[in-house]
């Protein structure tokens, strides 16, 4: 019988851990952490907004690194290219969530959903860049050529991340400066708030890992179904089996 899943024991453990950690974050964000002395209850959006933004950075950096490796190892396998694509897909999701939750938070604290402020504008630009990257990935053609042009684009796009992160320092911005990852290393958060925020980062990281594993396997299935590398994949698995059998004798 053919397996009908991209799941393994590892992904199931990661998935269950992600659900457990995120459940804790929701309980803590709503019922345990205090309201902020300036922002009041609206600070509870921070536990979704900040981890979403950080994981989007992580995803895009992962796309950059795996694209670099893919470019260096071109014409061997498409494995790193698929991870780059999967990571960018998840990064776009988290960046979109950071923009939406930031907009809702901004309405409560600034009185407006949107301002053409340096942080917001550069973040939107980063989001649009990676939507474009995903569009480039979907252009039909030879998978190795697709991998090459996507990798070059990803290596250029990742250069935007420092610009986004330091935009609040480089220009006058409505967006507050970093409360945790700031240049002077001074953490300006209550202990429970910091722990909940950290838990959010852990939970979203687990979601990111789970999603990337599944989506890169999905990309593998898509390529295999179209016949890309099917013979090579089967031959590799047969060689693996032969090597194991040979080693056991």
């Amino acid at each position, binding site marked *: 019988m*053919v*397996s*009908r*899943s*991209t*799941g*393994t024991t590892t992904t199931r453990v990661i998935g269950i851990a992600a659900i457990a950690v*995120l459940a804790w974050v*929701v309980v803590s*964000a709503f019922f345990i952490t205090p309201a902020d002395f300036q922002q*009041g*209850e*609206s600070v*509870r*959006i921070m536990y*979704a*907004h900040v981890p*979403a933004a950080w994981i989007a950075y992580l995803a895009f950096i992962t796309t950059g690194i795996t694209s670099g490796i893919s470019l260096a190892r071109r014409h061997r396998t498409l494995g790193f290219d698929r991870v780059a694509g999967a990571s960018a897909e*998840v990064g776009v*999701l988290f960046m*979109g*969530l950071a923009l*939406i*939750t930031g907009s*809702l*938070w901004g*309405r*409560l604290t600034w009185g407006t959903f949107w301002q053409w402020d340096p942080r917001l504008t550069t973040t939107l630009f980063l989001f649009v860049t990676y939507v474009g990257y995903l569009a480039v990935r979907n252009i039909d053609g030879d998978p190795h050529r697709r991998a090459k042009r996507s990798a070059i684009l990803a290596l250029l796009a990742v250069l935007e991340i420092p610009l986004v992160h330091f935009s609040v320092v480089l220009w006058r911005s409505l967006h507050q400066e970093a409360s945790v990852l700031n240049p002077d290393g001074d953490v300006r958060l209550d202990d429970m708030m910091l722990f909940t925020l950290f838990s959010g980062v852990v939970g979203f990281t687990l*979601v990111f890992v*789970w*999603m990337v594993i*599944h*989506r890169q*396997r*999905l990309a*593998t*299935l*898509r390529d*295999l*179904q179209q016949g890309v590398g*099917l013979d090579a*994949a*089967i031959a*590799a*698995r*047969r060689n693996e089996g032969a090597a194991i059998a040979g080693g056991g004798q």
Partner: protein
Amino acid sequence: MDDIGFILASWLITLGSIGVLAFVTLRRARQLAEHVPDEAKPWL
């Protein structure tokens, strides 16, 4: 909409979007996995 409405909307959109993408990913994987022999799947 008061503060709690915005806060709840933020969390519902966040968790809902993650849930939807996870569901769509697993469903699509299930559809495609049927058409690919197990020996070609590197994770098995």
